[in-house]
């Protein structure tokens, strides 16, 4: 079998994990600055203000990006921590599964809420 860097390492996925962590980090640097400023401006906002803000297509889009990148970055980061500190194989696998399911659930809930507002729910 041909050796290439794409399937090196114990997980056989080469540098993918490392690279994805960095790509999401760079994206989140800009997205988080936007998100922090937005939430700061929305401090104490009325329901209508918050609703109209989230409904704007640009905000809807950026919010989904914030959620998606955050959740992916989070699951990659937590995976490294789990792999560093949990050495029992079965505990490690179960913990990683729980992390991935929880992350997916949180991300999905956020995205559905954002899209619900965008498509004019309520």
């Amino acid at each position: 079998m041909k050796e290439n860097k794409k399937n090196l390492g114990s997980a056989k996925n080469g540098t993918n994990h490392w690279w994805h962590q960095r790509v999401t980090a760079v994206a989140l640097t800009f997205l988080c600055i936007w998100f922090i400023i937005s939430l700061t401006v929305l401090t104490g906002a009325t329901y209508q203000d918050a609703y109209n803000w989230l409904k704007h297509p640009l905000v809807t889009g950026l919010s989904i990006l914030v959620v998606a990148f955050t959740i992916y970055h989070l699951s990659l980061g937590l995976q490294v921590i789990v792999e560093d500190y949990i050495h029992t194989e079965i505990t490690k696998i179960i913990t990683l599964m729980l992390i991935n399911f929880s992350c997916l659930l949180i991300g999905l809930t956020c995205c559905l809420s954002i899209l619900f507002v965008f498509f004019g729910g309520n």
Partner: protein
Amino acid sequence: MEKTRPLSPHLTIYRWQISMILSILHRITGVGLGIGTLMISYWFISIASGPKSYSTAQWFFDSIIGKILIFGFTLSLVFHLLNGIRHLFWDIGLGFEINTSKKSGWTVVILTFILTLAIWLSAFMIKKTYE
């Protein structure tokens, strides 16, 4: 894993220094922010659920516990963001010299407090305009 395998010296024998503290804090704030995503989710859900849920969420975020949680979240987010940028510079091979990394580390610490304070002061002033 074999219990008798040799271990590297335990962490506690090292003298505490800025580099290691920030490295550990990067992980701790990362986990904290992960838990904090629940707060952000709650906020999005409350907007989707209507004015009543939104005002309940607002009441919670305005409470003492809510404020403490959001302050911790802001502090962690600003730190993780700034220290993350520091990590990205290392990734492209910049700032590895001991003195440079110590200086960038302290810059991160100082900026974290300044920016967190700036965000909270702005938030307080903006909140006044809604009242």
